[in-house]
């Protein structure tokens, strides 16, 4: 008990000292520890995201940032999962060329900083794409241009679903979906980087299913695809989920590197708010709380799923 009291005392003393210092420094700067500045008009523009005017409040601006983070993280998770699964299985392919290529991808991507990859994709690739008028169509409907990537969109019309293909009208494309270069670079960077880690997770999980399972399935006359689908993957999934959760969380946290390519995610917008108002402490509390909330949400969701597939197994 004595040790605990001593620890508490030290904690209170250190915390009190830091807090007093903080308040004193903030007062010297003419700042307080309050959040009411959030209702003031932000006055800066945000290039993409949900509806927002520079006249809107800081709180609204921050919300736009949160939505943008969720948007890029969600698509990134989808992309990285698909890419990682394909590459992870490719590493185990009996085709040695395919397996070698997968190793090459994983080893070269994992060992280079993500920030560097993002800067490469953004400045060396996406900003160097041809101007809009010279853009070439890929598969007839996808355009890579300096102003971003234009994709066909699936729209619901009265006659049912229809594919809306972007069309060059005058100086710009109309219709379809436009991904800004910032979003596209960030999404590609996050997908490629996290995909390499997920590939390793998938490979490890597939390899951890005992060989006997493969042999037993083959002895039963299942094809390779059937074995994978019905025997190996259900067992591997249980092993995959926990490390996969942490990869998803890493991707979400890594999306904060958006600030380096100018995508207005929550960290970038928060940083702008901080620069304008000088309210460093409240803004950091907001930023940290947002990431923590997202982390807790994602891990809660996946833990739920994890519990479910575990129940199915027993």
């Amino acid at each position: 008990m004595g040790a605990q009291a001593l620890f508490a005392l030290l904690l209170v003393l250190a915390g009190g000292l830091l807090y007093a210092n903080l308040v004193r420094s903030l007062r010297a700067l003419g700042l307080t520890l309050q959040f009411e500045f959030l209702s003031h008009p932000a006055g800066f523009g945000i290039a993409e995201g949900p509806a927002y005017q520079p006249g809107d409040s800081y709180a609204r601006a921050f919300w736009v940032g949160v939505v943008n983070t969720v948007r890029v993280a969600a698509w990134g998770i989808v992309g990285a999962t698909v890419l990682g699964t394909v590459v992870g299985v490719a590493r185990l392919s009996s085709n040695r060329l395919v397996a070698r290529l997968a190793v090459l991808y994983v080893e070269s991507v994992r060992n280079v900083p993500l920030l560097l990859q993002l800067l490469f994709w953004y400045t060396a690739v996406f900003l160097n794409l041809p101007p809009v008028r010279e853009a070439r169509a890929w598969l007839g409907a996808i355009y890579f241009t300096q102003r971003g990537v234009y994709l066909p969109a699936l729209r619901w019309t009265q006659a049912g679903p229809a594919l809306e293909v972007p069309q060059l009208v005058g100086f710009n494309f109309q219709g379809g979906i436009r991904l800004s270069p910032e979003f596209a670079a960030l999404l590609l960077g996050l997908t490629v980087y996290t995909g390499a880690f997920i590939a390793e997770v998938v490979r490890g999980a597939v390899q951890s299913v005992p060989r006997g399972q493969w042999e037993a399935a083959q002895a039963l006359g299942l094809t390779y695809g059937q074995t994978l689908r019905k025997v190996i993957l259900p067992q591997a999934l249980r092993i995959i989920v926990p490390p996969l959760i942490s990869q998803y969380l890493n991707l979400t946290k890594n999306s904060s590197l958006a600030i380096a390519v100018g995508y207005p995610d929550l960290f970038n917008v928060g940083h702008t708010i901080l620069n304008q108002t000088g309210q460093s402490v409240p803004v950091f509390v907001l930023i940290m709380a947002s990431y923590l909330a997202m982390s807790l949400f994602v891990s809660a969701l996946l833990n739920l799923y994890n519990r479910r597939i575990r129940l199915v197994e027993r």
Partner: protein
Amino acid sequence: MATVPVAAGPPQLSTRDRWAQWARSLVVPWYNALLTACCLAVLLPGGWAVGVWAVRWARWDVVGANLRLFAVGTYPPAQAWRPLVALVLSVALAAFTGWALRRRQRRALWVAVALWLAWPAAVLGLVAPVRTSLWGGLLVTVLLSAGGIVLSFPLGVLLALGRRSRLGLVRVVCTAYIELVRGVPLVSVLFMAQLLLPLFVPGMRPDKLLRALVGITAFTAAYIAENVRGGLQGVPLGQYEAAYALGLSPAQALALVVLPQALRAVLPSIAGQFISLLKDTSLVAIMGILDLLGVARSVLAHPRWLGRQAEVYLFVGAVYWLLTYSLSRASRRLERPELHGRVE
């Protein structure tokens, strides 16, 4: 996690047979031939285009002209021996540690550990006489990551012990710290260190690089704590009981019996942490610190080197790759079972 029994390997093949097998796998069965064709259809034109670009269009002179910047930043050439001596000493120390580990020299190993703990101070003493604003390039990258791992290690061990403490308050505080830090991105911790640290210590104006190091240390400690916790959990309960039965106090049992086993078990994951830290230190470039990536960005901002992004980033990426890949190859040796027996 279940471990897979190691199946007996296939019989040893001659080199020629292995190549034949390699080639056969490209075309048999039929879908492998299809896969090979698809790969080649993408690979050949893509590889050709990249090759043509690298040889004909890329202007690599930007790399050669700025090699010094990439290595040490604007560190004065007359003082360049300082980081060089530090580098030689570090390599010697690493070699010594490797030797001690391989030969299982217990006393030499303790000397090595002590030297590693003194290492940041020694290196700092060597390079510090030059203003930190002149430091840059690989020097800063290596200093930040090595300094970060050495400083965060003791902190991480303390946090891990705290998280398993019997004292409720200690446990809550340590757990809260670990989970909080692991839940937020490194950039936010680094920005906090840059902006908030001066507010917490009024009167002092900590150096920009020092603030970055504080942020990196605070961040890495939480991850190391989790690694160490895993190691602590791996030590069987019987070890504690045996230590107590021998009359050791709880502190002695921890220091002499439990921690040595736990730390040896987590050595590979600490090495992994160091490797990811080496990559993560690149984030200080966002803060305007001229580490390897920061130097790359400032070179690209120079009007003379406009539009050389691909060349510069590919070069810097290759440097990072070489560092981390060789380190991860080296760290795989730490997982060799013979290192986990008794070190005598």
